[in-house]
């Protein structure tokens, strides 16, 4: 089975996010990017499927900046190929545009199964995997955890997670696109030494992004932190003082004794 995993870089949400002077976009000057965490799950699921059933894993990424190390890390984890799609993506790219580019690039890459992260922190105009599937007219299922080959390799069984812990088991003909919520195992870790070694011994493939047209979209007019009426009362002081305040608050409501 030829598995393709498109990955994308997103702002690291652990860091403070600043809005730029226009008030419409992120200030990218100090922005720290990292691989979308759901894409790490998609890669892990792909690598687990490969280990158990054979096949290849190809990782794709649009060059939105800081992408090389991420792609080398994917190779260090066990991906067979890593392809960087170059173009004018430094200021970010809409999901519709990313999907259109990926669809064209996939024309020359064998793909039975495309695994993407279920969503990303910045996919304001929709999830890339689903848009990609629609462009390629492939079946798609999102919020998937657990993928197994079925029907003699012509299909996969995917578990789609609903609310309340209920799951649906669906059989999906290949080729298909699945949006991975969680891999069966926690994403593996590639030690820095291994990534360094891969950087010396392996090369990233590069493909120039083809020109694409996208239809009607939307333009951000304002980007801001949410204004909240009901913001928490923040308890200040030393850990000792804070703990005492919390005990008092909890005691007042009957959750503790004073």
């Amino acid at each position, binding site marked *: 089975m030829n598995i393709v995993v498109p990955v994308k870089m997103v702002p690291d949400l652990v860091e403070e996010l600043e809005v730029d002077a226009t008030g419409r976009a992120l200030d990218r000057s100090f922005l720290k990017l990292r691989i979308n965490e759901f894409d790490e799950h998609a890669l892990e699921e792909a690598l687990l499927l490969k280990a158990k059933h054979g096949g290849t894993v190809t990782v794709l990424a649009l060059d939105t900046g800081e992408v090389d190390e991420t792609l080398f890390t994917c190779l260090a984890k066990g991906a067979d190929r890593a392809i960087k799609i170059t173009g004018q993506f430094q200021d970010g790219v809409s999901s519709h545009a990313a999907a259109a580019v990926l669809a064209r690039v996939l024309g020359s890459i064998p793909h039975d199964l495309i695994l993407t992260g279920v969503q990303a922190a910045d996919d304001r105009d929709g999830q890339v995997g689903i848009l990609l599937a629609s462009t390629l007219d492939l079946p798609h299922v999102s919020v998937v955890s657990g993928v197994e080959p079925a029907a003699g390799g012509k299909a996969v069984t995917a578990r789609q997670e609903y609310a309340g812990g209920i799951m649906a088991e669906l059989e999906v003909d290949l080729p298909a696109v699945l949006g991975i919520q969680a891999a069966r195992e926690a994403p593996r870790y590639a030690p820095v030494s291994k990534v360094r070694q891969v950087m010396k011994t392996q090369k990233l493939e590069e493909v120039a992004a083809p020109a694409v047209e996208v239809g009607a979209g939307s333009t951000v007019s304002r980007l801001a932190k949410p204004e909240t009426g009901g913001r928490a*009362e923040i308890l200040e002081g030393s850990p000792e003082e804070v703990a005492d305040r919390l005990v008092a608050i909890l005691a007042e409501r009957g959750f503790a004794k004073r």
Partner: protein
Amino acid sequence: MANDIAVVIEHLEGKVADISFEMLGKGRELAKASGGQLLALLLGHGVKGLAAELGCADGVIVSEHETLRHYTPEAHKQALAAILKARAPRVTLVANTAMGMDLAAGLSGSLGWSLCAYCRDARLTDGRLTAVSQIYGGKLLADADVEGPSTILSILAGSFPAEAGKAAGNPRVEEVPPPPLDKPRIRFKRLIQPEAGDVDITRQAVLVSVGRGIQSKDNIPVVEELAQALGGALSASRPIVDQGWLPKTRQVGKSGMTVKPKLYVAVGISGAPEHIEGMRGAELIVAINTDPNAPIFNVAHYGVVSDLFDVIPLLAEKLKASK
């Protein structure tokens, strides 16, 4: 028609999901602004009876067929695409849920209509549509001017009051058979109910919930101590369960459980929208996080900006001593 507002009704096992009523309420407001009708789109098999609950709408379009009996993204998307193409409503609201996600983006891709995802709000002013999306893990809101005569919005659960969409009424019901789907590429096999046996976190009065801030599985006992001191149970946000540190039965949030305990202590949880969706109904929420801008503080009643390892063990100790 071009001014209508459509709402895709989500339902599972014969029950209309609350998010559907939230969207009907919002849809009513948008229809007033657009001067069009509010249409509820109801797909399934043997679901016509549910139309009686959708009194908020002016009309219910029912599409019933054996292929729609169980939800699959393919069959439901195809049936919806046919209806939407024929009616071309101004705005179509779809839930940003496991079911709705494939439909919203899939319809945008198939129909070529614009899409704004993760919407918390939407406004129509003189025919112009503004959508407010909650992105970057809930840290920022983006207002966007939306292009195109028809737009799809995927709506985050908990954005609007469900009550507003539960109005009684007598909408006309119109039956529209779906186009044939001879060779489905996605086939429903079965529904899997959650495993029983572990603690049922939906029935606990006190939950102490642990998130990514705990850093390692070895640190989980630190939070477990606090749960014990409060006589409550341990629950978790999604990353903890994805790592395999706690079982799925303990997961609070969109793809886990919705909980409404009397006390919810969020430890090292930043509060992504998917998590908040599952716990915002708790009576008292206390949050501890190192990031003062963590969205969890927007729903918590009391907040502590601190390293959890400085405060949690001390708090557990003091609570135990006070007993």
